Structure formats: structure tokens, C-alpha cells
């Protein structure tokens, strides 16, 4: 997977979370791996179908998740990750991926008829989880923000 396919997701993440008032967004060094080990609490993962096929996962700690949901709801305090909070995290994953696809990725694939679709997000909680989200390779980028670290894992079949 070339780097040019990764940056649209990072830019979209920056775009979306800065709209919620999150600041100090810094991208870490991308790392390539076959399996993805997550030791944070919450992962939101969704799929892409069409001429770009793959999965994208966003992982964060429950502290970061609470702060993210709170930021999305104009600062409303969030005590626990209940069904509304989960739905908000899923919605954020949807927004970021949708944004990435509509803004930059479709330009990269110009010339081809673009027929993308995003599948519904699944939220996975737990400790010490080993994932495989792509049969080819997964690129993992840590993103540090004012509300904590969000790890973006991209597994596209290109």
C-alpha cells in the first residue's frame, strides 16, 4: 500500500476531530504489520467495498473515547461508554472514513468509475486484542491529540 492512500485518512481524521474542538493533532510514524495488536480499550472498525476494498480501524483508550464523545456532544460530560457513546464513536468512524473517500481518495483513483461504499461500523471493546483486518498488510499510524492518542489502522487491498 502506497503512502498516498494513507494520508487521506489522516487528513480526514484531522478535519473531523478539529471540528469537535480537538487541538494539537500530530501524526506519528506509520508502521507496517501483518497482525495488529491493540492494547487500548475501544476499536471502531468499518469496511470499504467497491474499487477500493479494505478495512479501517480506529483504536483509542476509554478515556480518549469519553473525551471524544463529550467533544462531539458540545462538552456534555460522559461518565461511561453506553450505547449512545458507542453510537457516537461509530458515527465518528463513519464521518472520518466518508470524508477520506469523498475528498481525496476519489481524486487519487480518478479515471476509474468510482463506486465506493462504506459498511456499518462495529465497535469492539476488550483488552489485549490481536486483530487481522487485511490479508495483505496493515499500516498503523499513531495520532496524538489534546484528548489522547487515536491509532489509525488501514488495511486496503491495493
Amino acid at each position, binding site marked *: 500500500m502506497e503512502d498516498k492512500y494513507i494520508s487521506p485518512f489522516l487528513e480526514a481524521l484531522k478535519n473531523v476531530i478539529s471540528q469537535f474542538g480537538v487541538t494539537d493533532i500530530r501524526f506519528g510514524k506509520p508502521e507496517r504489520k*501483518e*497482525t495488529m495488536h*491493540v492494547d487500548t480499550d475501544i476499536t471502531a*472498525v*468499518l*469496511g*470499504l*467495498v*467497491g474499487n477500493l*476494498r*479494505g*478495512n479501517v*480501524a480506529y483504536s483509542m483508550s476509554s478515556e480518549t473515547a469519553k473525551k471524544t464523545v463529550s467533544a462531539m456532544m458540545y462538552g456534555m460530560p460522559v461518565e461511561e461508554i453506553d*450505547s449512545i457513546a*458507542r*453510537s457516537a464513536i*461509530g*458515527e465518528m468512524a463513519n464521518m472520518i472514513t466518508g470524508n477520506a473517500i469523498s475528498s481525496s481518495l476519489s481524486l487519487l483513483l480518478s479515471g476509474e468509475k468510482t463506486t465506493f*461504499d*462504506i*459498511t*456499518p*461500523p*462495529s*465497535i*469492539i*471493546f*476488550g*483488552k*489485549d*486484542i*490481536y*486483530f*487481522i*483486518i*487485511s*490479508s495483505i498488510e496493515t499500516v498503523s499510524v499513531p495520532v496524538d491529540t489534546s484528548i489522547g492518542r487515536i491509532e489509525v489502522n488501514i*488495511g486496503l*487491498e491495493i
Partner: protein
Amino acid sequence: MDMRMTVPFVEALQDIFKQMAMIEVQTDGDPFNDNEEVHSYGVSSIITFAGKIKGRFLIDLDTQVALQAAKNITGSSYDSPKEQMVLAVVSEMNNIISGNAITKLNNEYGLSLRLAPPIVFAGTDVVISIPKVASASVTCTTACGKLKASVAISKA
């Protein structure tokens, strides 16, 4: 959710487990409406799809079922479900099961569904949730443990 949607998935699950992994899968009963949260038995694999409708198919295996399937397919023994080969086997089985089921659904109902690649994971105290989408599950029994198949469909 329409319970008919679960039929092709459960049939394909039984076929593929028998053909590939030599594991007989008996369903415990009819599909039931499941909670939004699913507590994983050990190893889970999710495959999502989109077309005229969107949704996801989840297979959730007892650790022993996953280890046995990996052993029967690859011929080697594994100790932990977190080993890459075990995860890869479950992921590939789900890919084949969903591929079969989706083809049937597309032929029968013209849904133009396409699959995203499978996701597979194993961890400690794992809970899977798919917000705002109704799911129907079928629990099944095999000689080496339990497994669950769950289909969730949302309107696109």
C-alpha cells in the same frame, strides 16, 4: 429484522465447517433477536457488506473450536487463539462462508451486495457492538464447543 436473511449464512456455515474443517455444526434452535452487545466466546470474525442494504455477519467461536478448525485445516497444533495462523484460518473460513451466502442472497433477492475483507480478532473480555442495527443470532454446538452466527442488517 427479517429472519430469512440468516438462512443462507447458517447453511453456508454448516457446509464449510464440515467440508473444510471436518467439524459438524448443529444449530440449537431458531434465530433470535440478539442484543446490541455480543460477548465473544474467544475468537470472532466479522465481515461487513454493502449494496442495496448494509450489514455484517459475525461468527463467534469457542477457543477450542477455533484451535480444532486450525488443526484440521493446516495439520499443525496450536496453543493460543492469538497465533496468526489460527486467526488466518477463521478469517478465511468466514470469507468463504459469507461469499457463498452473499451469492445466494444476491441471486434470490437482487441485493447487489459486495463484501469487505474479513476482520478477525481474539482477546480478553471482548465485547462486540454494532450500534443502531438489529441483529439475529443462531447459537450452535459442535463436538469441541459452542459457536454463534449473527447477522445484522441495516437499510442503506
